[in-house]
């Protein structure tokens, strides 16, 4: 597995609904999920992929007691991102005995993705990321400091109502307040 592919997956995995990609990734190699990190074992290297909350969530959901089986008690990945020759043996043995568990978890990932798609085909977060990319820092800053916004956010004072309605004509920058 090439580094480039891993880097690509890293970005994809941050997107909701792209967890299926990880499934394919793990299908041909061994790995485990520890906290927010996904570790892929390929030959004698271990590559951590930082994941958004998704995969960890699946793991816990499928195996509520899975923490006990996680390798973190034996090896702290943050201090050993690339294990030396001694603990590579350990990793391999871990994966041989636990590969079934991991496969089970990945099956569940697909089920969860299906469930999310069933709830709605719309993905406003994708649009949000697009807006975020085009947003200029500093624009709308006055609004985020305004009493109306702060009162609504904190539910306090004369502006502490449940709904804040920002009215404005097209082009005044309502979307980019986000």
């Amino acid at each position, binding site marked *: 597995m090439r580094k480039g592919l891993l880097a690509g997956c890293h970005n994809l995995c941050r997107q909701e609904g792209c967890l299926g990609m990880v499934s394919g990734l793990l299908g041909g190699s061994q790995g485990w999920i520890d906290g927010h990190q996904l570790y892929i074992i390929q030959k004698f290297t271990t590559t951590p992929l930082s994941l958004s909350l998704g995969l960890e969530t699946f793991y816990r959901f499928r195996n509520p007691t899975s923490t006990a089986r996680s390798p973190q008690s034996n090896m702290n990945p943050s201090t050993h991102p690339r294990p030396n020759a001694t603990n590579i043996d350990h990793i391999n043995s871990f994966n041989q005995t636990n590969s079934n568990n991991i496969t089970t978890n990945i099956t569940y990932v697909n089920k969860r993705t299906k469930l999310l798609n069933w709830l709605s085909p719309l993905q406003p977060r994708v649009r949000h990321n697009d807006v975020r990319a085009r947003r200029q820092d500093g624009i709308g800053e006055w609004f985020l400091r305004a009493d109306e916004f702060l009162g609504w956010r904190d539910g306090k004072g004369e502006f502490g109502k449940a709904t*804040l309605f920002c009215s404005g004509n097209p082009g005044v920058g309502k979307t980019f307040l986000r």
Partner: protein
Amino acid sequence: MIDRLLDHFVGEGVTVACLYCDFQDQERQTAANMIGALTRQIVNALEMVPTEIEEAFERAEHEVEGRGLRVPEIVKLLQAALVLVKRTFICIDALDECPEKHLSQLLSSLHTVSQASSGIQLFITGRPHIQSVVEKYLLGGVQVTPISPSNEDIREYLEMELKNDLDSEAMNPTLKAGILKRILEKIPDAYVIAGSI
């Protein structure tokens, strides 16, 4: 703003769900899909899928293909997700672009869920004419704030655009200052025109 909310409440069990209404996506932006999209984001932020939602999904999988969720069903599922969250911010952009036939269903559903669970706050943007509809369905409790860009916003935006000007040789500090001055002077007139369109 969504990012700012998330940053402010990090680690406090606060969830933010958003919707962007869009004229061009009217076919897909039904009330059921929009409420579903909110549910989807909240479920995605939860550690475990609520049992009620998982059971409903499993039932649907065994039913005739193609039957989507109806509004009352998805509202129930949204409620099942919301009770597991301490506080939820729901942000809806350009509500006036929501198809009229779905608008009342969307707003009355939001009213229903915010009555049923505490800790739900709504942030809505839209053109001024939609204000009466928002107030009608969300019954009081609506703070209205008119939004117009500050001169500082416009200056920052113009400076960014001028910096991106491909023909950079044609630009000099005097010309740049002149452009900024003339545009900023004309802003009040520009917004009167935009408002009357």
